[in-house]
């Protein structure tokens, strides 16, 4: 059997991938990564502020997948939505860290999502700060399970935010978001 490692090794090196996880996202994943990032700071002298920022964007992205992915693994517990599946990457390229994730969303969710992200992408840091404060005060939006602040938070912490929607199947598109720090 030929190892697939050489293929992934080269691809990861070219794209600057440090960490990749594909599958059901859990709180445990966040806690494990927190530990790994803390070690990088303590033992490899990685910059604390940057690491914190990477971690916080990672948390927002993964928790979005947990709450909103349409690709779910059912749990034993009845009435529970099951585990949200997707893919998340942390990388370092051209001197900057980036955090990206992808998950399936229903086609009908796309226009609303796109509108929200377009709005955020067009804002400068001051506008984002004001928008964040405004959203913080208002109640949660329909269909929102978190505070509705995740994207704004990511955009504030990052340098650039990019996103795309690609058709996946009859009912779904793959939503992906990338934040460069």
């Amino acid at each position, binding site marked *: 059997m030929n190892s697939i490692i050489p293929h992934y090794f080269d691809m990861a090196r070219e794209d600057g991938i440090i960490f990749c996880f594909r599958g059901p996202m859990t709180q445990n994943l966040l806690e494990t990564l927190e530990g790994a990032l803390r070690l990088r700071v303590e033992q490899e002298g990685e910059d604390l502020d940057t690491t*914190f920022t990477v971690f916080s964007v990672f948390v927002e992205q993964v*928790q979005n997948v947990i709450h909103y992915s349409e690709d779910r693994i059912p749990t034993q517990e009845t009435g529970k939505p099951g585990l949200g599946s997707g893919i998340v990457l942390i990388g370092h390229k051209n001197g900057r860290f980036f955090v990206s994730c992808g998950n399936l969303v229903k086609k009908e969710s796309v226009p609303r999502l796109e509108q929200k992200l377009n709005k955020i992408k067009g804002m400068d840091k001051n506008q984002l700060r004001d928008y964040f404060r405004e959203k913080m005060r208002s109640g949660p939006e329909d269909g929102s399970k978190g505070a509705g*602040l995740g994207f704004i938070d990511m955009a504030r912490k990052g340098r650039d935010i990019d996103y795309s929607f690609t058709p996946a199947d009859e009912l779904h598109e793959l939503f992906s978001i990338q934040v460069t720090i």
Partner: protein
Amino acid sequence: MDDLLIAKTQSSPEIHLSAASDRLLIKGKSYMENSATFYRPVFDWIEKYLDGLQSGHVTVDLEIVYANSSSFKVIMNLFDMLEEVARDGKNQVVINWCYDPENKMAKEYGEELQHELEVAQFNLLEVSS
């Protein structure tokens, strides 16, 4: 009222709310999966405590190393409650936001929250970890 004590976990803070000493403590990291569920008993306790506040003062000690966006909103809601009490004028509210000087994000959170307060006394305090 009995104290409310919740031990910290890797993604949730230590909570120690004491009516007897008029001190509310939230210390640690806050990125649990469901912040509304986690903080509900905290809110319920604080609401009940503030309703019956007799002593004339309450001190809130916050040492939040990291908060995800939904926790941040919850903390803001808590501040709204405290601000209302401070506005009444009958009770003095002091909020201490403690942060490690190495933790720029925690300092920025503090400044962000400070901006939202008008009446309650807010102190940004450096602490060594």
